[in-house]
């Protein structure tokens, strides 16, 4: 059948040793629990994974079984095979281990299985049509861009992967069938992260990155130049093919040898200690490590697991798990990607400790900063350099953007109101043709959005007795009102993040502005991932200006942020009112929008609107007034630094606004633990 294939044979792929090893282990032992490949775009993730197709070993199956049951393992048989065994009609056959790809457009009925329309029509009762999970049984299920897959699909998949069974209870079908497969996912963390609980369910994880060695890069180019010439020749021509054949043979042997590989209790204890020292309390890690090291031993033709194998696969196992451990956070700054897999026990500690930071775009290798002349981000709060860089006038300065970081998750509360938006931050049910279809429902919205396939599936089993004595209108199928199913779509209502940035003179002190800009940049990057709209208001002197009206161009916002000058007085109350006006008009345009006003200030208000009240009292009055609209959420980010005298106005302001209150430092997310839900 036509299938997306890799342009290269597995053995011809340059570098990426760790990923290749992990893939081979997954083929040898499905019990490992799958593999997650994380890395930048264009690093050959899917090319390498798809190249695995050429290596898959043969397996013996029950002839004619849709699920490809193993004739030698009666406990995993499907109902039909059990019956076959009883009748004595069980025959052996063989097939290549399946490699099934799950495209992002997949709907639930195709993944899990659903009603077969044609068959149901014929037999007059619900007939099951096996889905991808049935096809992937005893093989590999590959999902590219797994972080973009619908959550409910992913959950269903992982449930099946861990239990080895797929339970279908839908559309009048109740069936359980074996579905044990290795799930291989690839993703680019730039596009959003997977939840930690989902990460843990992957047995192994590798990080891939592009080659940085000139020779290797050139080698890769040479390979593609040859491919481009279309002669079908690879460097060293047939030698590569021979390698491929050899590897295939080795894999087949390893697969059959796996059952014989043993592990002593001593080694098991070693694994346990390793996990504890990594701060990895998930028992899944121990199990996976045991299985993976067995698979590696099998690949190497050994009968017993030694420490070498355990240590070699350990990084693959702890890669995505050690993050959760609080003790490892101190090392957060170092970059986990740089080092290569090695067998040295002593160095291993260093290698795994720093993996507590999520792989967002925020910690690109430090190296890239060096070349850009004073523009790119400074490391931390490099006071001297940054404060003088863009000086225009004595009291008006343009500060650099501080080092961005990953921010805590800021979400609105999930509600059941129906919206038409399409952001990513706050999940909501969407009617009206937009949003991703998540499944059919019996209840219709005001917008007629019939799910034809679900309607047909509902109607199919009843056709036998319906077709009698009714006009057919040239159609074969009679559909009655009770069959109608409507599309239920899930989108995410978009948020509007209004950044209200204090650009007054006091913010210039102690490079507060550098840190603030860094924080805002981080929030902007987060807004990008969530596809939010952003707007920016800055205030200084006597005025608060809308620097950027609501837009979805985060790039534009970043540019404005960079050029934002600082200096002058602090008209805080005016800024609040301006933000309120902006949000109100945005809400008029789109009543389902969810505005979040982020106030970034040190709170030293000293410019009032009127003359009757002091700056702080006035601020309190204004704050109470603008916080009356329940649709708007507020967040106050306090930029007062610990070294100077804290006046505590931001905290007071947050109280009046009913806002969430953060200090800049608090915003940095450890991305696992800190989920802020603004309820």
């Amino acid at each position, binding site marked *: *059948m*036509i*299938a*997306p*294939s890799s342009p290269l044979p597995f053995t011809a792929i340059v570098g990426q040793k760790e990923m290749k090893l992990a893939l081979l282990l997954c083929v040898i032992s499905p019990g490992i629990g799958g593999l997650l490949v994380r890395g*930048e*775009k*264009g*690093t050959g993730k*899917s090319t390498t994974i798809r190249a695995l197709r050429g290596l898959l070993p043969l397996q013996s199956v029950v002839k004619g079984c849709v699920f490809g049951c193993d004739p030698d393992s009666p406990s995993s048989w499907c109902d039909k095979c059990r019956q076959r065994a009883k009748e004595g009609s069980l025959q052996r056959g063989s097939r290549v281990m399946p490699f099934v790809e*799950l*495209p*992002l*457009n*997949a*709907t639930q*009925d*195709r993944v899990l299985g*659903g*009603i*077969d*329309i044609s068959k149901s*029509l014929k037999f007059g009762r619900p007939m099951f049509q096996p889905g991808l999970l049935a096809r992937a049984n005893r093989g590999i299920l590959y999902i*590219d*861009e797994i972080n973009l897959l619908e959550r409910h699909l992913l959950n269903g998949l992982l449930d099946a992967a861990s239990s080895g069974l797929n339970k279908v209870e839908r559309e009048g079908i109740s069936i359980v069938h074996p579905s044990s497969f290795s799930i291989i996912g690839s993703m680019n963390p*730039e596009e959003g992260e997977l939840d930690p609980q989902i990460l843990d369910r992957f047995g192994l994880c590798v990080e891939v990155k*592009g080659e940085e060695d*000139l020779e290797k*890069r*050139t080698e*890769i*180019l*040479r390979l*593609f*130049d040859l491919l*481009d010439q*279309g002669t079908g020749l690879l460097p060293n021509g047939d030698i590569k093919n021979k390698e491929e054949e050899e590897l295939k043979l080795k894999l087949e042997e390893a697969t059959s040898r796996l059952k014989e590989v043993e592990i002593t209790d001593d080694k098991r204890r070693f694994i346990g200690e390793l996990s504890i020292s990594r701060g990895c309390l998930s028992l899944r890690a121990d199990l996976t490590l045991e299985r993976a090291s067995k698979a590696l031993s099998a690949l190497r033709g050994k009968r017993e697991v030694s420490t070498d194998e355990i240590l070699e696969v350990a990084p693959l196992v702890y890669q995505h798990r050690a993050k959760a451990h609080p003790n490892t956070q101190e090392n957060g700054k170092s970059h986990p990607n740089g080092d290569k897999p090695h067998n040295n026990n002593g160095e291993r500690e260093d290698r795994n400790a720093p993996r507590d930071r999520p792989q967002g*775009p925020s910690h*690109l290798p430090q*190296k*890239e900063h060096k070349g*850009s002349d004073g523009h790119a*981000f400074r490391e931390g709060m490099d006071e001297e350099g940054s404060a003088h860089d863009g000086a225009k006038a004595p009291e008006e300065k343009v500060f650099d953007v501080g080092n961005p970081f990953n921010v805590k998750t800021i979400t609105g509360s999930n509600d059941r109101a129906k919206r038409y938006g*399409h952001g990513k931050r706050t999940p909501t049910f969407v009617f009206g043709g937009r949003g*991703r279809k998540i499944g059919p429902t019996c209840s219709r919205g005001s917008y007629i959005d019939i799910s*034809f*396939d679900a309607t*047909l599936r509902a109607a*199919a089993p009843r056709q036998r007795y319906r077709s009698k004595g009714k006009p057919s209108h040239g*159609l*074969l199928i009679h*559909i009655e009102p009770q069959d109608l199913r409507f599309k239920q779509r899930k989108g995410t209502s978009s948020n509007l993040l209004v950044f209200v940035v204090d650009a007054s003179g006091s913010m210039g002190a102690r490079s507060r502005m550098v840190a603030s800009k860094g924080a805002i940049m981080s929030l*902007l*990057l987060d807004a990008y991932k969530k596809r939010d709209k952003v707007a920016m208001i800055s205030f200084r002197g006597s005025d608060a200006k809308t620097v950027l009206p609501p*837009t979805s*161009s*985060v*790039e*534009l916002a*970043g540019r404005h942020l960079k050029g934002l000058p600082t200096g002058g007085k602090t008209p805080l109350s005016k800024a609040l009112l301006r933000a309120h006006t902006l949000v109100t008009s945005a809400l008029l345009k789109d009543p389902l929008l969810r505005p979040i006003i982020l106030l970034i200030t040190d709170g030293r208000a000293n410019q009032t609107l009127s003359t009757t009240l002091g700056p702080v009292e006035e601020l309190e009055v204004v704050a109470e007034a603008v916080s009356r609209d329940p649709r708007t959420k507020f967040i106050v980010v306090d930029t007062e630094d610990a070294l100077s005298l804290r006046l505590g106005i931001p905290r007071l302001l947050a109280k009046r606004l009913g806002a969430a209150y953060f200090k800049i430092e608090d915003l940095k997310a450890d991305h696992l633990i800190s989920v802020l839900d603004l309820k």
Partner: protein
Amino acid sequence: MNEYTNYPFSAIVGQEEMKLALILNVINPGLSGVLIRGEKGTGKSTAVRSLANILPEIEVIEGSCFNLDPATELETHWQIMEAMGHAKPGTGERKIGVTRRKVEVVELPVGATEDRVAGTLDIEHALKTGEKRIEPGILAKAHRNILYVDEVNLLDDHVVDIMLDAAAMGVHTIEREGISFTHPSRFTLVGTMNPEEGDLRPQLLDRFGLCVVVKGTTSIEERVEIMKRRLSFEKKPEAFIEAWRGEDEALVDKIEHARNIYPEVIASEDCLKTIASICLEAGVDGHRADIIMLKAAKTLAAWYGENEVKEGHILKAAEFVLPHRTRRLPMMEMEESIEKIIHRSLQG
């Protein structure tokens, strides 16, 4: 799209970079498309639509709604025919007709829904006969054609994801609504966008092989010339097209020639090294930039009628390949000009 009402490609004033990028993609569909960024009213869409005039002819299997290539995709054709229920598996004599037709510009409208793009269950057929059949979507139509997405930055996220998937693999798999179907879908992706309305995700940016930025011209003469040509086109389109036919045809011949000599273009070891070091210096993610730069340099050489890649070709290719790929925070502006990067890498 009717080819007779398209503005002639060669009558477009200026915008040489954009025209060159489009031509390169016509010569070599392996360049994975071009992204045209620019303000409104700079002739982006006009240029893409007028591409239809200079596209080459290809051979297709007659009656196939997937534009399959009779030379390489015969087997696929029968697999698809079987899957769609038009042919019985492995029986009888199999004959196909072959026709020639021009490569088309297939448009993907911004409002396109997931099922129209991906393909879905043929409802009419299912209601009439009770059988499942696939109704191919835009991605099927786009095979071996040019897929044009106007305002690509405004497209729905999940539609983009589906499109990307196909663009990356050259194959599109449908697993939805009771249908399970795979068909080839190799297309040249051409997108236009106005960056003011929001940017593309880096992942999508990277999938476009080349990128050009267009600006409205500030030369008075050019502006006058543009107006003159536009007006005379609108007054008498047929006459205008006729007047430019010769130039368009010359262009087609030149493209044809470049297509023919492309397989013979050689890139020396030094060239490969130069490309790799430019990409390293620019700090791009992954290797797509290297590969595309090599292909673009070879295509440029072919376009200029040479059979060897020279440094000039590489430098020109870098200008097309790097702007949207330089590693940066996704939303930050590129601070350094491409020339600087190239300069540094050549010195280093």
